[in-house]
């Protein structure tokens, strides 16, 4: 009687389709990835008043040292004590250049009315940033 030998089958993992699976996954990731780059105007706020209270001193700044840019509720700008009026971006650039000529370390204080639009504040800060002004103060009335 013939006794049949048990043939051991070779165990193999099929790898030929592995690359297909991997490429499929890559395509999925590439197609679903949405690059959300953040771009904007960066500003460093001063520390809270309570922390700096001891160090703070009351300073009186003259117009030569500080320019007040007050934004009214309807978007007009009051420069120091001048009459309020609407400023084009180019006019703002000119104004900033004039002030920097007077004092290269000029501080710009942007006082925005609580009812004014956020867009008006950003427009002014953008022009200041474009003129490479570092000393910008943001406040409200």
């Amino acid at each position, binding site marked *: 009687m013939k006794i049949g030998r048990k043939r051991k089958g070779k165990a193999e993992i099929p790898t030929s389709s592995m690359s297909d699976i991997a490429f499929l996954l890559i395509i999925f990731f590439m197609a679903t990835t949405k690059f959300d*780059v*953040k771009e904007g105007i960066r*500003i*460093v*706020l001063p520390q809270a008043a309570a922390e700096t209270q001891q160090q703070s001193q009351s300073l009186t700044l003259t117009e030569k040292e500080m320019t007040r840019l007050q934004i009214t509720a309807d978007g007009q700008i009051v420069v120091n004590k001048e009459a309020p009026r609407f400023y084009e971006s180019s006019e703002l650039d000119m104004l900033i250049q004039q002030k920097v000529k007077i004092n290269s370390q000029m501080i710009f204080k942007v006082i925005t009315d609580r009812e004014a639009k*956020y867009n008006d504040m950003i427009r002014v800060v*953008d022009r200041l*940033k*474009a003129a490479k002004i570092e000393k910008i103060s943001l406040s409200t009335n």
Partner: protein
Amino acid sequence: MAKIKKDRKNETNIPTSSMSDIAFLLLLFFMVSTVFVQEKKFWVERERWPIADSIERIPRNHTTTVYVMRDETILIDDVPTRIETEADVFVSSTLIRKKADDPDLVVCFRTDKETKYGVMSDVMRQLQDANTLVVAFETQKRLD
């Protein structure tokens, strides 16, 4: 009789065994470099942001986004809140927690351009309370 040799055509093979290695390497790169956006919804559309020229790129990995909508609703991590009284300190309490996790935190504002400045001022005061002083106002780039 002379034997006529058959022309043996050489089989051309492209080695594909390492293909999966390359593919997995690429896959790993994508998986590692992907940063998932935490917010589920884009609360203020890009078209509603103000337009500016002097914008700079902000590295994403240390940022948190604060949405301020036109109706003065503030959203941090998809949680809506409002600042109406001194007791509404959700913004500062959330940011204190975030600042503890990441000391280099940058707060990015995605504010509707029509929003009144008053609410922004209130939010910034709470930012100062939370000692998160680096902020960025996200804007659209002016296209001329």
